[in-house]
């Protein structure tokens, strides 16, 4: 589906990418169903708290250095801003910048605004943000409340924009609109693509856009790209508006995360002629090889990439051997967003571990280039068929499954999930940094991180002996996906074969 920048609002992932939050089966079945177009979302009769797209949109945009955000909603909708600020502080710290706070204003929507409309307070909020921060652009993020009462925020914004003379850009991210929080990334990128990025005045053949989060891997990538004669431009966080406006000048765009980068990468390709590299993610050796090779193919640096990778293989071989020896046959459960989950499943299998279950918090049946995500397709090429589910941080499913498969380790990525494995006595690793397991050195470091977690598990064991889980015995005896309303759900006996027998 082509990306239409004339619309003010991005089409949500459920409609654009046939994304789902409920499924249980295997990776091959998931890929087959999504390729044949018959993948359906399964709803749940019991559910637990997830996230919303506003968090992704607002958090991502808040670290643009010279922009401000006006969050139009009740004050709780800015509840995650303290977290965005913590992330922003870290990002500034690793860049040796003077630290300042994020620039987000909330319109503090009260009962009065809900009844009589919030246009006036939105206008005040935008003017206040302009006055306080002197920003180069203001992004307005919406909320459930502003969405339901139907404020005409676009006309308010147009009027204020004419008054203050900087872009005032809507970011539609009402929590109820999409069950896929990653739709918030698309909303953020849509705002940038439609209002900030300008057509290139000149092209820079050495420049590569790298879409990431905090960007801890900047030095390593700059060095690698330098060997290839390329210059990385990291973003969108910690970029400024002027830099983002010139993302169209690059020779290619590549992303650290397929879920994150799909809309921006393909939007730049379709609307500004910057090719998007739809490779595997650069976690683990095969992922990194593919990532760099496809980048090389895109920008005509095949030979340089080949030489670099050959050299790295030799250097890393002894360390990788040691890691594989120590991790062989260890059982692991993975729980992450879809792109990271499917990439980490491949990466951990490559290390010789046995992935006994893969949770992804959602799943995109396709990406914006039209095809099934490369990391998912890649997993269908191996002999074994890995059991997976799409379980939007549904804690009851995760805990129930962990209690049955009892893996050696749980590897997760989002706050508030890995801790539950720990409470069950299972060692856990949270991959909070997007550059964990990046490239050859990152892979070796991550391998040792797993080995360390397996070496001393005393914290998890001590906790598990003293802590009670909030689940009833009845629940822990049920099928983990008991509440999932899936038509072709695997029978319990089949499921048991997948789950219990392992």
């Amino acid at each position: 589906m082509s990306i239409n920048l004339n619309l003010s609002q991005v089409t949500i992932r459920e409609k654009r990418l046939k994304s789902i939050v409920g499924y249980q089966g295997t990776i091959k079945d998931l890929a087959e169903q999504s390729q044949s177009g018959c993948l359906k979302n399964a709803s749940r009769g019991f559910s637990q708290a997830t996230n919303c797209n506003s968090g992704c949109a607002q958090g991502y945009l808040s670290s643009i250095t010279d922009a401000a955000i006006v969050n139009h909603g009740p004050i709780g909708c800015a509840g995650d801003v303290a977290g965005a600020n913590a992330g922003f502080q870290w990002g500034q710290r690793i860049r040796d910048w003077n630290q300042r706070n994020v620039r987000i204003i909330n319109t503090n929507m009260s009962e009065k605004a809900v009844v009589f409309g919030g246009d006036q307070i939105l206008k005040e909020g935008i003017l206040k943000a302009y006055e306080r921060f002197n920003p180069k652009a203001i992004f307005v993020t919406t909320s459930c409340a502003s969405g339901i009462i139907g404020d005409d925020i676009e006309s308010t914004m147009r009027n204020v924009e004419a008054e203050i003379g900087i872009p005032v850009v809507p970011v539609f991210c009402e929590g109820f609109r999409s069950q896929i929080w990653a739709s918030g990334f698309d909303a953020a990128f849509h705002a940038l693509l439609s209002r900030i990025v300008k057509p290139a005045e000149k092209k820079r053949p050495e420049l590569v856009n790298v879409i990431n989060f905090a960007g801890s891997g900047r030095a390593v990538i700059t060095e690698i790209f330098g060997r290839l004669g390329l210059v990385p431009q990291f973003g969108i966080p910690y970029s400024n508006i002027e830099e983002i406006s010139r993302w169209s000048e690059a020779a290619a765009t590549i992303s650290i995360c397929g879920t994150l980068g799909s809309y921006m990468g393909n939007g730049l390709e379709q609307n500004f002629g910057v090719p998007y590299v739809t490779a595997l993610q650069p976690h683990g050796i095969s992922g990194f090889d593919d990532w760099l090779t496809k980048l090389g193919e895109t920008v005509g640096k095949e030979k340089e990439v080949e030489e670099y990778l050959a050299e790295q293989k030799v250097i890393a071989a002894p360390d990788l051997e040691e890691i594989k020896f120590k991790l062989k046959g260890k059982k692991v459960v993975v729980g992450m967003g879809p792109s990271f989950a499917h990439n980490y499943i491949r990466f951990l299998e490559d290390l010789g571990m046995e992935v006994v279950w893969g949770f992804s918090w959602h799943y995109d049946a396709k990406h914006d280039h039209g095809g099934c995500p490369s990391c998912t397709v890649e997993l269908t090429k191996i002999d074994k068929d890995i059991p997976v589910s799409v379980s939007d941080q549904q804690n009851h499913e995760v805990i129930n499954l962990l209690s049955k498969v009892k893996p050696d380790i749980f590897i997760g990525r989002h706050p508030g999930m890995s801790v539950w494995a720990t409470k069950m006595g299972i060692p856990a690793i949270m991959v909070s940094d997007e550059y964990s397991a990046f490239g050859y050195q990152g892979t070796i470091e991550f391998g040792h991180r797993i080995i360390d977690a397996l070496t001393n598990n005393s914290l998890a064991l001590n906790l598990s002996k003293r802590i009670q889980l909030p689940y009833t015995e009845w629940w822990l005896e049920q099928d983990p996906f008991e509440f999932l309303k899936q038509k072709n759900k695997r029978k319990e006996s089949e499921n048991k074969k997948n789950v219990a027998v392992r």
Partner: protein
Amino acid sequence: MRTRKMSQCVEQIRHVCTLGAFESVLAIKRAVPIVHAGPGCVAKLWTTLGSQNGHQGSGYVGGHAIPCTNASEKEVVFGGTDQLRKVITNTFDVIDGDLFVVLTGCTSDIIGDDVGEVTRKFQDQGKPIVYVETGGFKGSNLVGHELVLDAIIDQYLQPQQVEPGLVNIWSSVPYQNTFWSGDIEQLNILISSLGLKPNVIFGPDSSVEALNNIPKAQFNLVISPWVGLRNAEHLEDKFGTPFLHYPALPVGPTETSNFLRAVGEFAGIDPSVVENVIRKQEERYFYYLERAADTLLETRLLPRRFITVADSLYALGIARFLTNDMGLIPEKQFITDDTPIKFQDSVSAEFKKFTSDIVAETVFSNDGGFVEEEIRKLKIRSRPIILGSSWERVVARDLNAYQLSVSAPIGNEMVLSKSYVGYNGALQLVEDIYSVVLNDFM
């Protein structure tokens, strides 16, 4: 001089919306919130009240374990009561809890789901469940905290025979006050030292049994400038329980001894018992303070003035201690808990009751951006100390001020059982403030 609400918009938020009160439910052992709201509400509110607030995690059934309808467009268009009924029904099977509290968010309240009707069906079946409408636009999570307590009072509590000596304490709001669980432990110790028995509603020693026992109390003790007052009034109306309103958080010997005398008098305790407790505690306090006195007086660059940016409870408690006991001078006191206008005069009045006729000027604003502007405008001799949240770390660095985080959100400290309440809490506060100063030397 005071400033009323300066700004509609809010930057650098310190409290969240009404629905944030699900954290108050989590503070009661084995009580389970069921949230009927959009998919991101819990995650967002938990950031300010939990993970970025002393790094309080999900605990027994918090975070992603909270049953939630994650209301989508379908519920917004067609109503969400069917989904809510399903989630409640299955919660009883899946989650092991003693009390269930249904809390709504904006989506449900705006579209007008009849959550009461859904919940009453379960109540009729004898299930321990109450509901409360906490749509975010209704106000702050402090108001939400009161609404949750009112719901429990109205829908759950039963009249009980009064048990002499039993006291319900309403003070630090769970999770909103970063040090709430330590504070409750310290308040319980203080109350117990008088021979009274605290009924422990929140925190590590809490239970639903204690909730049931609320109507048994001899009296309710509200230690807070305003939060919790309406609940005490409500309990008085419904069960005839009298209450004592003590507006300041007792921090340090002066206030804590006043507090113990006030409670002792209200409870009809022999003054000699109270004075005995006070004497022992003060002796211990001054033993340590005497040892610290050299450094408190003789170190270079000690702060002489302090700025507080906190909710009314902590701002007042800390300001009283640092002024009355530590000899510092209060600069502006920024009160960030969105104090309802009808309470602002009485809260301000408390900031005029200091030693040596000192008056601490209060500014009411929940807009941290405005507070920051005001701090930057202050002309202060010497290096002040800013006692605020982790939002103030930036302005403190810019102004070369010392900074200690004492109020939500606190991302830069791990807080477990620490408390600044009472005699012992004051020692902790002295340790923390002067460690910030001493760390600046080396």
